């Protein structure tokens, strides 16, 4: 046996482990391996000496009963839950999924917001009130479109100037009841757009042909400041 092989057994020997006879014979007659065994033994003794000289600190007294009661409440709830566990697990999944969706929507909204949003409140001639939001700084933002009974309108932002916003408005009256099945775009085909300046916080009355006026008020919602 060579020294390289015997060394590992010298280490085991100093731990009191049984080693092969050939290794024991080599260590017995090899001065270097015997010296290595001695060194290993000295290292161990020195480590134990160092450890014994260090003061073993007292540990904190703990209220284990209280800790158990505090830490296992949820487990008790789980064990005594009245609904089937897979339903409970499913509920958790749904909550997490909804939470993730909300997060994604919020992130997207923040990414697209580029600042302010115009919140429009519209009152139709028949007294119905509706609300919708328009992004101010996005030219591709969809217009506010709505239809109630025979009255339909589409509003879009053209420009903003200080405390007022220029709106493009298209209004159609006498809409047939079958109209909702057609896309809103086609509903306003051929309808002329009129421009109006809306003072924020004040009412704007947009007249329509024969059906009364569409009353619009607006306020700004600056999401970057929230």
């Amino acid at each position, binding site marked *: 046996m*060579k*020294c*390289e092989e015997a*060394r*590992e057994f010298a*280490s*085991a020997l100093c*731990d009191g*482990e049984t080693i092969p006879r050939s290794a024991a014979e080599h260590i017995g007659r*090899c*001065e*270097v391996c015997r*010296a*290595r065994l001695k*060194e*290993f033994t000295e*290292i*161990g003794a*020195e*480590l*134990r*000496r*160092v*450890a014994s*000289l*260090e*003061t*073993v*600190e*007292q*540990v*904190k007294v*703990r209220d*284990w*009963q209280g*800790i*158990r009661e505090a*830490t*296992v409440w949820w487990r008790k709830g789980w064990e005594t839950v009245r609904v089937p566990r897979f339903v409970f697990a499913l509920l958790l999944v749904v909550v997490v999924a909804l939470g993730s969706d909300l997060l994604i929507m919020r992130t997207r909204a923040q990414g697209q917001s580029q600042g302010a949003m115009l919140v429009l409140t519209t009152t139709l001639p028949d007294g119905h009130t509706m609300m919708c939001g328009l992004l101010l700084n996005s030219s591709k933002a969809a217009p506010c479109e709505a239809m109630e009974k025979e009255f339909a309108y589409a509003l879009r932002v053209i420009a903003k100037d200080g405390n007022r916003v220029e709106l493009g408005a298209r209004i159609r009256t006498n809409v047939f009841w079958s109209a909702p099945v057609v896309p809103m775009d086609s509903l306003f085909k051929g309808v002329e757009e009129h421009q109006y300046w809306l003072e924020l916080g004040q009412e704007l009355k947009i007249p329509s042909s024969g059906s009364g006026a569409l009353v619009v008020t607006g306020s700004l919602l600056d999401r970057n400041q929230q």
Partner: protein
Amino acid sequence: MADDRRVWKCICQGDAHAFDAFYRDNAPRLQEFLRHIVGSRQVAEDLMQETFTQIWGRPNGFHAERGTLRAYLYGIGRKRAAEWWRTNGAIKQGNGVDPAGCSTETVSAVNEAFAQLPEGQRTLLWLREVEGQSYAELAEIFEIPIGTVRSRLFGAREALRTIWQGPRGGSKENS
């Protein structure tokens, strides 16, 4: 072994007195062991407390036929120390082990050399030399075969010897 089974049964049944006795018997040594692994008294105390809290909160995984309760305890402590070392070791490395808690005369050359060993070797060597864990217990703690325990212990001793006695020079070897 029978005593381990009895203690474990009490712990599983939520016997706070039995667990407190187990804690008092083992916590100081475990904390000392952890301090030598992570190099910080405060971190060692935190890890020790986490180890006991884990066992008390979720007593599972101990099998008396596979090893002693002490080996099981140290196994959990070692894993926590290794996790801590993975995330914080890089910061600590280079600073060496904080000798806090050791008086000047106890900080010997071997202690300094020991602090330079990699975390795994330090853990193994301390458990064997100071805590006196058997090869079987070490195999349980590290989840490795006994033969690997032997070779790793040899590697750790060689590394420590090289660091400790390096300046003195090596000795001749025959073949």
